């Protein structure tokens, strides 16, 4: 028998994940935990679909009651503030694109929750409502894409180590989203028909600019928008308000679609380019980690994904030391954004990945 901490956000996925573990006939003892990641949002934000509102805690608690499992609230405000929110803000200030869901998995769900859950609750494992699968084959744990390719979340989970994978459960890995909703409806869970949350949980209205000012005092200083030749073609509101690949909000009319190609913090400059100028065939990736512990080889073939739901592209991967690699793709990939994850796959297995570095 295992004792499993089910991370419950108050959404339908984690509700069903907990329900599947807690259903009758299983040996597992399940403990529901809702993590408080930040303070209450100001009045008027409660209609947001954020997973971290007090309403979400109420929903999670109600589901736990219906499943007859203990339910606790774990305060991770300090850790989340430093590891996720500040890192998110700092990423923009470095001219990079942040990856908060991955940071939350890496530092909060599969680290803080895992270690505190194991110690406080005497648990053996943490379960989440992620769409991903785990297989134990040839002496190690393998992180596999979810059965529902459209929902697959391995892109946010590549950082997990063997040790973490060994203590993780993904009860939804073999299910599709419609199946999950059907189970929730069947169990009459109050979260069965909750809409999908899309925005970042701590930026409920989708505008992160206020956060830059609030956390780091960055108000944004206007600066030049230049084209590939360095010709000034417009004015931006502050470099950190832009990310590579962005098309909208540039206020530049050049008669064809243009995109942010590069963000230069030191000169407060935003460089734009035409669609084909933003694509690349080769990019460097830092902070590489592999689920197996080590890279499969010094040089190997893999498919690479550079943003959530983007198509995979076959690539030749060359290690540069232990934690850096260069990916050369068979076809150009659209706007590899510094800061975003480049995640490597061998078929359905997620091998690991890293953070795209500044070119």
């Amino acid at each position, binding site marked *: 028998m295992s004792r499993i901490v089910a991370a419950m956000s108050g959404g339908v996925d984690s509700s069903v994940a907990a329900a599947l573990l807690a259903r009758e006939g299983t040996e597992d003892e399940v403990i529901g935990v809702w993590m408080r990641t930040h303070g209450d949002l100001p009045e008027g934000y409660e209609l947001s679909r954020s997973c971290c509102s007090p309403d979400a805690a109420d929903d999670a608690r109600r589901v736990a009651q219906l499943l007859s499992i203990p339910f606790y*609230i774990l*305060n991770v405000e300090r850790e989340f503030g430093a590891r996720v929110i500040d890192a998110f803000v700092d990423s923009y200030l470095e001219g990079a694109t942040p990856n908060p869901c991955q940071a939350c998995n890496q530092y909060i769900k599969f680290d803080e929750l895992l270690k505190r859950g194991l110690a406080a*609750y005497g648990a053996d494992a943490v379960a989440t409502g992620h769409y991903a699968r785990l297989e134990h084959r040839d002496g190690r744990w393998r992180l596999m894409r979810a059965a529902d390719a459209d929902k697959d979340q391995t892109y946010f989970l590549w950082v997990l180590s063997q040790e973490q994978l*060994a203590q993780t459960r993904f009860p939804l890995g073999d299910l599709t989203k419609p199946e999950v909703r059907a189970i929730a409806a069947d169990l009459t869970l109050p979260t069965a028909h909750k809409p999908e949350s899309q925005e970042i949980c701590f930026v409920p209205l989708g505008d992160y600019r206020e956060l830059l000012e609030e956390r780091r005092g960055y108000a944004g200083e206007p600066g030049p928008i230049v084209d590939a030749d360095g010709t000034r073609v417009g004015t931006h509101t502050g470099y950190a308000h832009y990310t590579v690949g962005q098309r909208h909000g540039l206020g530049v009319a050049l008669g064809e679609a243009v995109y942010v190609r590069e963000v230069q913090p030191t000169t407060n400059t935003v460089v734009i380019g035409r669609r084909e100028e933003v694509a690349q065939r080769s990019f460097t990736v830092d902070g590489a980690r592999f689920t197996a512990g080590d890279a499969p080889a010094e040089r190997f073939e893999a498919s690479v994904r550079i943003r959530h739901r983007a198509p995979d592209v076959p690539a030749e991967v060359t290690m540069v030391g232990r934690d850096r690699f260069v990916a050369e793709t068979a076809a150009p990939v659209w706007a590899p954004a510094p800061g975003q994850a480049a995640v490597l796959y061998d078929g359905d297995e997620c091998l690991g990945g890293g953070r795209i570095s500044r070119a």
Partner: protein
Amino acid sequence: MAIYLDHAATTPLRPEVLEAMLPYLTEHHGNPSSIHAAGRRARQGLDEAREEIAALIGAKPREVVFTASGTEADNLAVKGVAWASSARGRHIVTSTVEHKAVINTAAILERQGFQVTAVGVDRAGRVDPADVASAITDATTLVSIQAANNEVGTLQPIAEIGAICRERRIPLHVDAVQSAAFEPPTPDAWQATLISLSAHKLYGPKGIGALYVRQGTAMVPQMNGGAQERQRRAGTENVAAAVGFARSMRLAYAEKPNLATLRDRLIAGLVALDGVQLTGHASERLPNSASAVIEGVEGGDLVAALDLDGIEASTGSACTTGSVEPSHVLLAMGIDPELAHGSLRLTLGRDTTEADVDRTIEVVGACIGRLRGLRAPAAVSA
């Protein structure tokens, strides 16, 4: 069976109390304001309950106002008197370790133009009566100090504070919600004008409290409507709960369980554990209350761990929302904020046994060890 050590949060209803209440939830269904027989019967139950509570605290029945909770009694006392005397002055004196029902009520008054002085406490959580004396100004119209602290159990020198208030002719409000479970509040010995009480802390029902209001005290009602409770608290009276309140109070003072001995055994066991310090006063504390701060442990984690091991405890403050703020009481006592995160409150009840206490000490020790060991990495295995 879990060991329930959270009697400061609430207590189980006594079977005798339930029995006393049942007729008023069934056959005696009348509204006490009604003229007819059913109404008169309900009125009788209500009047007798009021008489009984008054007798137990040495007050007149007309001085007992039923409310829906101890919190409501605090609100009525503080706002009711502050507003009634607002033409004379707009200053109230309270302490930094009051229950939120007083602190947040005073904060509302502050926003409405009143001035509030919260006197500090010493390391044990005690108010110095001299501080109350020097906080009083010509504009002061109310002093509000609790009889015992809900988080750390410290008893306040109410009679001394009462003497000061009496001399300065300022009404004293005493929140006696915690202490009334063990000793009847004494309006005369305390020289108190207002005293808040609650039934569910003394094995009575939830949903009923009372405010003792000394005869002749001007007060603005906070709930407006009918003429119930001598126009001090409108709304149809919760008759069954009032009957239960009176019965539970009578039973509470009819017995003298020796909780203090068990409490001291628990405290001795806790402080013998590594990195555990008693909070509150060593002797001037509620007979059922053991509270501590524990190094290297998050109070919420410890309480969850204890729960899973069959011991129902509390961090001391209501932190169901997982707030990261440490207890205002511990901070007011000068306890380091980091250490204050590791708070634990164990409050004994009439059914607690020596074996429960010993088992609790053992489990607390084991849980602390586990939590501090965050985390010895588990072996990677299939």
